[in-house]
């Protein structure tokens, strides 16, 4: 009798330990998954650095790499790897894109968050979300087939694949994402701020300009920075729309070549482990570090408002 009941009790106890073990096992599994993001970010840095290491340690010269505008990797006698022109290409396209995307995305975000109401707001939000979903290769295709002849005709220039083309494409591409983030930042401003200002007799625009925008300042800055990061890292669209010519642009009608596009265009042609191959990975490290810094800054700025 007594043994039976204690056995039964044991059994009960066993079942509970099983659940307890499962619970612990799950905790370990989800913890490992939880830190996977950290592992992957470190992994990206390590593996990209590993492939580019040969060049970094052997023949890397800071002044030549960043200071020379000659990107001549296929010159057999004296290949030259200067990314200055590529940086200028990326910077000019991203800069023009931001000139377009920043006012438009902020304006759209303000309209959606502060002026529109009800159904209109819902529709606009959905539309913006759908715009953000268009793949970058489709944007590149649009730049190549629709924008290219349009620019040639409108401005009477010989080539339409230019800073202007890629800048517009990239601006249209980055704007929806920036709009969503900026709108979130505006929504995060408590309604009592608006109510207090309205109670003082302020018009809607005065409420926005004097109260909402200052309160959402950091979030909006974060949105802009993330847009810059996106522009910097965009690959397919700039590969197809810039004209892909190594060149420091003098005007928006010049063709350029971007850092990302160079990797995309040349990685397939290089022999694994060759110097050219390693240089492309070195550019990858550079891109990784830049976007890392941009994202980190955006995060610190956005977090700044939360701590206030």
């Amino acid at each position, binding site marked *: 009798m007594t043994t039976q009941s204690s056995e039964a009790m044991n059994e009960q106890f066993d079942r509970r330990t099983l*659940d307890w073990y*499962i*619970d612990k096992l*799950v*905790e370990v599994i*989800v*913890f490992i*998954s*939880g830190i*996977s*993001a*950290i592992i*992957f*970010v470190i992994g*990206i840095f390590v*593996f*990209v650095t*590993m*492939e580019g290491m040969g060049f970094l340690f052997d023949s890397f010269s800071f002044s030549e790499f960043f200071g020379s505008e000659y990107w001549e990797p296929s010159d057999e006698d004296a290949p030259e790897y200067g990314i200055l022109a590529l940086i200028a290409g990326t910077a000019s396209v991203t800069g023009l894109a931001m000139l377009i995307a920043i006012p*438009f995305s902020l*304006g759209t975000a*303000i*309209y959606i968050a502060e*002026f529109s109401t009800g159904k209109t707001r819902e529709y*606009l939000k959905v*539309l913006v979300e759908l*715009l953000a*979903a*268009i*793949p*970058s*290769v*489709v944007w590149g*295709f649009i730049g*190549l*087939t629709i924008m290219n002849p349009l620019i040639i005709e409108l401005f009477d220039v010989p080539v339409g694949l230019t800073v202007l083309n890629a800048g517009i494409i990239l601006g*249209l591409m980055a704007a*929806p994402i920036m*709009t969503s983030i900026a709108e979130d930042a505006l929504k995060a401003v408590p309604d009592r701020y608006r109510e207090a200002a309205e109670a003082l007799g302020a*018009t*809607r*625009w005065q409420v926005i300009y004097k109260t909402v925008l200052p309160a959402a300042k950091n979030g909006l800055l974060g949105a802009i920075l993330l847009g810059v990061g*996106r522009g910097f*890292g965009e690959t*397919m669209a700039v590969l*197809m729309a810039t004209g892909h010519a190594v060149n420091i642009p003098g005007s928006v009608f010049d063709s350029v070549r971007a850092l*990302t596009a160079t*990797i*995309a265009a040349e*990685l397939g042609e290089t022999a694994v482990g060759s110097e050219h191959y390693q240089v492309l*990975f070195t550019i*990858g490290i550079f*891109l*990784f570090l830049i*976007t*890392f810094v941009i*994202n*980190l800054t*955006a*995060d610190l700025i956005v977090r700044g408002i939360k701590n206030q």
Partner: protein
Amino acid sequence: MSVEAMPVENLFTESQLNVKNKKIQSLYRVLFLLMTLLLILPVLIILGTLIVKGGSMISIDFLFTDPVNGMTEGGVFPALLGTVFLVSLALLISVPLGIAAAIYLSEYASENWFTRAINLAIINLAGVPSIVHALFGVGAFVMFFGFGTSILAASLTLAIMTLPVVIVSTRESLQAVPHAFREACWNMGATRWQTIRRVVLPNAVSGILTGVILEVSRTTGETAPIMFTGAVFFLPFLPQGVFDQTMALSLHLFVVTTQVPNVPEQLPYAVALVLIGMVLLMNSISIAFRMYLRSKKKW
């Protein structure tokens, strides 16, 4: 002086300043509306152009035949199938991993520097340029792990790239489940995992699904990460396993636009239309699903 002495109409007309401020307000309102329209309209026009120029080529045949004659004729079947393979395998990897990571962040992690580091890593993973993900895929999966350029290597690269989408959307839907639900379950003597499995996940499953559909759409359009890890320009046969290379719709659009000579003008438009149709369809399903959920919400 009594109130009657004041002219009545002055009580109800607005001051000069008020009129001016109202004018400024409507001016800005119109300005921002114009900006919104200027942002949205060009894209709608572009989409319209795609439909007009490529629409006539789209047919069941176009979707289910092979490209022939150096990719200048025929359909997109192998590319379509390749994209389905790549996306499915990427989902098989990233969805369980992403959900588990979100469970950790939502149910286990406490507010400290370590959790902040994880969140920062997620933001960074989402912000790393796609071409750097491609370099990582080449360095890690193609070379180091020896998968070669294969569906497996490409899918792994895609999975890691889109992991943040799953984590963020899943975490949001987990956190939307009221805390009282968990407490009620714990009070019944359930372990943490039992609570998550029986109470939290069932209540969050539709939100998680919305995020997964969104990820499908994101993964479908990616080109740079698969260019060097597993997708090829042209393949005369269909892939037989995860270690084979494959064609992909997004890369196919790049190829027929820039690499193949003598392509009929309509063909790239049609390919772009199929790709964008797939992506927008997935996105619309995800949005509709989310709206339906919001209207059904019980708490």
